[in-house]
């Protein structure tokens, strides 16, 4: 009776609970009528996900999730919702809705089926938990990989961000000026 590992048990329980909460929060995102509430549910969902990341030994990514995603992106969302708003939207059932749900349910079923497949052959990389700790933490481990083997992807990602920034400025300028002119 005392053969079970308390740590592991706790860990498993917590993981399961957090996972379920994440799913429920996502359900909340799509089912609410008011956009603000949906945004709040999404923030909650992201925090749950960050916890899950922590539980799976990805500390750096968890931090990035909170800072970037829940912090910056969702705030941006909230600003836009405040600007444009949107009324409470009442969902009336319709044929299209039913068909869409049916398809997605099928997809879910198929994906669940795929879960019955056994574990894939492990690649057995070099970083298990001890090694990561020896290197100096998850951030350092990621840094070592990122700047050696994936440096091209890194550079491309930075280029992408630059393009996005420029694009935003152009978009806002285009949409701004005609409105101004119209007001004259």
């Amino acid at each position, binding site marked *: 009776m005392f053969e079970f590992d308390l740590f592991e048990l706790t860990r498993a329980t917590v993981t399961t609970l957090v996972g379920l909460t994440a799913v429920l929060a996502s359900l909340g995102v799509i089912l609410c009528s008011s956009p603000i509430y949906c945004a709040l549910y999404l923030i909650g969902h992201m925090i749950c996900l960050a916890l899950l990341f922590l539980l799976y030994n990805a500390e750096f990514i968890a931090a990035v999730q909170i800072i970037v995603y829940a912090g910056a992106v969702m705030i941006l969302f909230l600003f836009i919702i405040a600007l444009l708003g949107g009324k409470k939207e009442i969902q009336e059932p319709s044929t*299209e809705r039913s068909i*869409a749900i049916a398809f*997605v349910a099928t*997809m879910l079923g*198929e994906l669940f*089926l*795929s879960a019955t497949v056994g574990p894939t052959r492990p690649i057995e990389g070099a970083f298990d938990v001890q090694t990561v700790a020896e290197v100096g933490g998850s951030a350092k481990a990621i840094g070592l990989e990122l700047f050696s083997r994936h440096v091209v992807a890194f550079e491309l990602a930075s280029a992408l961000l630059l393009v996005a920034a420029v694009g935003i400025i152009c978009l806002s300028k285009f949409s701004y000026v005609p409105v101004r002119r119209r007001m004259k």
Partner: protein
Amino acid sequence: MFSYCWFILISPLVGFVLLSWFGNGMSRKSAGLLGCGSVGISFLITLGALVGFLLGGENEKGGTSTLYNWVTAGSFSLNMSILVDPLSVFMLLIITGVGFVIHVYSIGYMEKDPEFSRFFSYMNFFIFSMSLLVLAADFFFLIVGWALVGLASYLLIGFWKEKTSAVLAARKAFVMNVIGDVGMVIAAFIIFDHLGTLSFLEVFAAAKSTFRPNDDTILLITVFLLVGAFAKSAQIPLHTWLADAMEGPTPVSALIHAATMVTAGVYLIARCHVLYELAPFTMYLIATVGVVTAIFAGSMAMVQYDIKRVIAYSTMSQLGFMFLAVGVGMYSIAMFHLMTHAFFKALLFLSAGSVIHGLNDEQDIRKMGGLRHSMPITHITFLIGSLALAGFPLTSGFFSKEAILINSYHADMGNIIFWAMAILGAIMTGFYIFRVYFYAFSGQPRTDANAHESPLIMIAPLGLLAFLSLTAGFGGGMIDDFLATYFGTHMPHPDDVLLETIGLSAGLIGIVGAVGFYMTGKDRLEFVKQILAPLYDLLFNKYYVDEIYDFLIVKPTRATGAFLEKRVEKLGIDFAVDQVGFQTREVSRLISFWQSGSVRLYAFNMIVGVVTILMFVVFL
């Protein structure tokens, strides 16, 4: 050696081109000069070739002259070459000589016509084509010349293109000629298939060793060539175009439809006599059709009122005589008759043209009369022509026709029936031509038109042709000798006094008959007309052949065409083509619903795609 003979072809061709391009700018005098001059040059060159032959004596067989090699495909080669031998020189003399005379005549006849140069350009083109036909050294260029002559005939019959009847007649002539062309081409195919060559010399040399007499193949070849000959020479059943061809100007009728083009059929058979000797059955057919046409045409000529039509049927009838001659194997005699016929028939046509010209385009003989006083010279020339046609003793027609009549019985392939029908034809000939003579030239004028004699430029050719009609008959022996080098044998002269006498009198009986009917009051004529009314109707309506053809051939063809157009073309083919476009449009209209502009629909499509792929991945 005879390479200068190319200029016989080049000269009228140059004349044609120059007159077509610059004719409108030329004065009538220069256009006429150019037209006649080019033919005159051809005639002189032909005379030179003739001299060359005469100097060469019995052994001169002539030769080919090649300009260049046109096609070489494997073992087949086709050269542009001409064949100068006694037969072609003989024909060329007639073509260019009579052609030249008629050209001179036309300067006078067509002087009031606004399209003077066009006429001469077409006439030159005709001389070129006919010379090509005669000078061709192989079947290929023979057929080319054959078709070009048909084209020239079409252009010249329909010369007055505002006249609907002329255009229709031209079309009819052309269509029937094309039927003949098709026959010739098929014959050429068969010849090539079996002998591998189209050159005359090679074909004739190989034919004897390749074919047995009355072989199926040689019968086919000769019969198909015959279709061409019959179409061109207006024998039954392809004869209906010749009478209508008289819509063209009279010099055209004289040149093309009397002296030269219609004789191309006879020339063809004479040229290919080697092939025909291997097919006695076809020879028999030729003789039969010839003699039947002779009687057929002669009977129709007896009741026509248009002077040119009578002479046209006369041509058909005389061609029948020529075919009879080749059908029994008497080639030289046929060519002899061809020559004399060219002279007196051209004379008759040109005299008739003079009459028409003098009476301001009146062609109905019932409206003529008493012309011997107002047009004396034309009267004499017409009389000479008529006598020659009827075979009056000592005229050229007498000698040639006598030879045909006697040999139609005495030749190896002749028999009594041919002879009897030929005699009947000769009697009819005398009758119909003197009927016209009496109507037009004797008695009192039946018309108010001020008949005047034609100008010198028209009279001089008439005189020349009249002279030839009287004297050419004595050259029969020389012609026979000349052509013997080609045909290989001399023509026999059987001595049968009885048949000679009967032949001599046949034409005279016809003349007497005409005198009896037309010079002694109208009673007999009306009486006979009443008794033989149905027969008269039959003859007058040309045996209803045109109507039969219309019913059997023209109407079904038109109906088939209309049916195909309405049903097959409109409902079938157009429908199918339209449906291609229509269905494409419908399908794309259905598909365009997919592009609804709704983002959610697009996302939905994506999900559907993902689901499908997952299904494949998971389950298969």
